[in-house]
């Protein structure tokens, strides 16, 4: 569905993407992982046409994305930080996007609006919303038009556990509808249940792009986080950030356990 060929992107001196090649198909859930600043968001924005690569091509359904924006009607995008017009009310925002997208009402997917109880805040201006609520609005917008491709940039960051669970269920449901889903996240345990493929980026380079089964076999680990850590250590990648994350997680778990005790 999406094919990426030799994408390069530089921001001034910073090399954001370096010769990325990949092909994503329907029914796949691809996790983009890597340390902060490794180019995940840049890659996503390139697919959306918000960032223009210096060289290379991106194909959507075998059509190069250059100029014609109509392919974006098949994409639902949930940004990392949802920024919306301050004066607009939540209800107006939904109305406006409906108006722009022009999708028939029966093809609309309002499940998340209902589950996040967004109807109750329809008359609140966007600027009064908290970060988490904004995130819910972004998520509801991404799923609203029932797109074939979902691009979710850190979808669960900032959501409370309940909402994050709702969102995960929704993603699983869409996965079963044979859609292509691209996710970036630092919370590997969230990805564990969802993902079919892992793409690991570091300093703009794609270190590997593997099926999760293959990854598990190669590493002998069932947990995604540990599997990745093992692979990276085996291949001598800089896996410091993942180690640190486990240390943090373990210590927080210990603190929690102590609390319980």
């Amino acid at each position, binding site marked *: 569905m999406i094919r990426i060929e030799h994408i390069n992107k530089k921001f001034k001196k910073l090399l954001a993407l370096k010769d990325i090649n990949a092909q994503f198909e329907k029914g796949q859930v691809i996790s983009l992982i890597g340390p902060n600043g490794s180019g995940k968001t840049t890659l996503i924005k390139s697919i959306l046409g918000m*960032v223009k690569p210096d060289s290379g091509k991106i194909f959507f359904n075998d059509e190069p994305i250059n100029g*014609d924006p109509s392919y974006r009607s098949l994409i639902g995008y949930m940004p990392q930080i949802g920024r*919306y017009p301050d004066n607009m009310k939540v209800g107006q925002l939904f109305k406006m996007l409906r108006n*722009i997208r022009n999708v028939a009402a029966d093809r609309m997917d309002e499940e998340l609006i209902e589950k996040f109880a967004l109807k109750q805040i329809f008359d609140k201006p966007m600027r009064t919303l908290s970060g988490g609520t904004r995130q819910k609005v972004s998520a509801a917008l991404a799923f609203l038009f029932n797109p074939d491709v979902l691009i979710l940039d850190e979808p669960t960051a900032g959501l409370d556990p309940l909402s994050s669970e709702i969102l995960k269920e929704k993603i699983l449901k869409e996965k079963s509808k044979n859609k292509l889903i691209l996710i970036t996240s630092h919370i590997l345990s969230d990805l564990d249940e969802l993902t079919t493929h892992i793409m690991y980026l570091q300093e703009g380079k794609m270190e590997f792009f593997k099926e999760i089964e293959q990854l598990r076999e190669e590493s002998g680990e069932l947990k995604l986080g540990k599997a990745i850590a093992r692979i990276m250590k085996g291949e001598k990648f800089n896996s410091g950030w993942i180690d640190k994350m486990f240390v943090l997680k373990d210590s927080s778990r210990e603190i929690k356990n102590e609390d319980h005790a």
Partner: protein
Amino acid sequence: MLKLSKYVLYDIVRSKVVLAYTAFLFLVSFSLFNMEENSSKAILSLLNIILIVVPLISMIFTTIHYYNSYEFIELMLSQPMSRRIILLSEYGGVTLSLLSSFLIGVGIPVLLYSPDSVGFSLLFTGICLTFVFTSLAFLTSVKARDKARGIGFSLLIWFYFALIYDGLILLILFNFNDYPLEKATLVLSALNPIDLGRISIMLKMDVSALMGYTGALYKDFFGSGSGILFTVGIMLLWIILPLWWALRVFKKKDL
């Protein structure tokens, strides 16, 4: 495109700056027409205010609006909308609101007190300047990375066209007054939309008699049919070129 412009317009009307601008123009025009006995004197005073205020407000308002609607633009970019349409709808929304302010604030008083050729050319100049400086403001906002720079550049451009340019022309005329400069000043005036607007109105008034030989030459040129075409053509270039450049930059921009 109209759909998007509608939302842009809606957002602008809510901000109330445009309402204040309308009220200001309306008050100034009305009080000038009431204070001066002679309506052409009032037009002359009004002209001087319009030549300063319209470019200034167009530039600053557009620049601030662009940076304030950055989120909106970002949101639209993730939708099936081309960049050209997004920027043109923004342009359409901004010019439409500024123009309606101008036409209500200045147009109504002029139609009431001085509905003659001078009055209409004043309105024409105001409309052109609104378009021109909105285009220029779009160019600066698309080029400048942050709000402070954008507003700074906008002010600089306004300052250049409203004040510095005239000073430079005076300097040239003063230093080269031994040479026949009439044709050269004609060209120089075309390089500044504010001057072009000023000249095309002044020549419709009696004051042009005070401008001596240059005034006569100007009257000869700008009064003729080809002169009017020249004015309109140059104004159109001033509107289209910056906007076209802004579109080109915007299409390649990373957001």
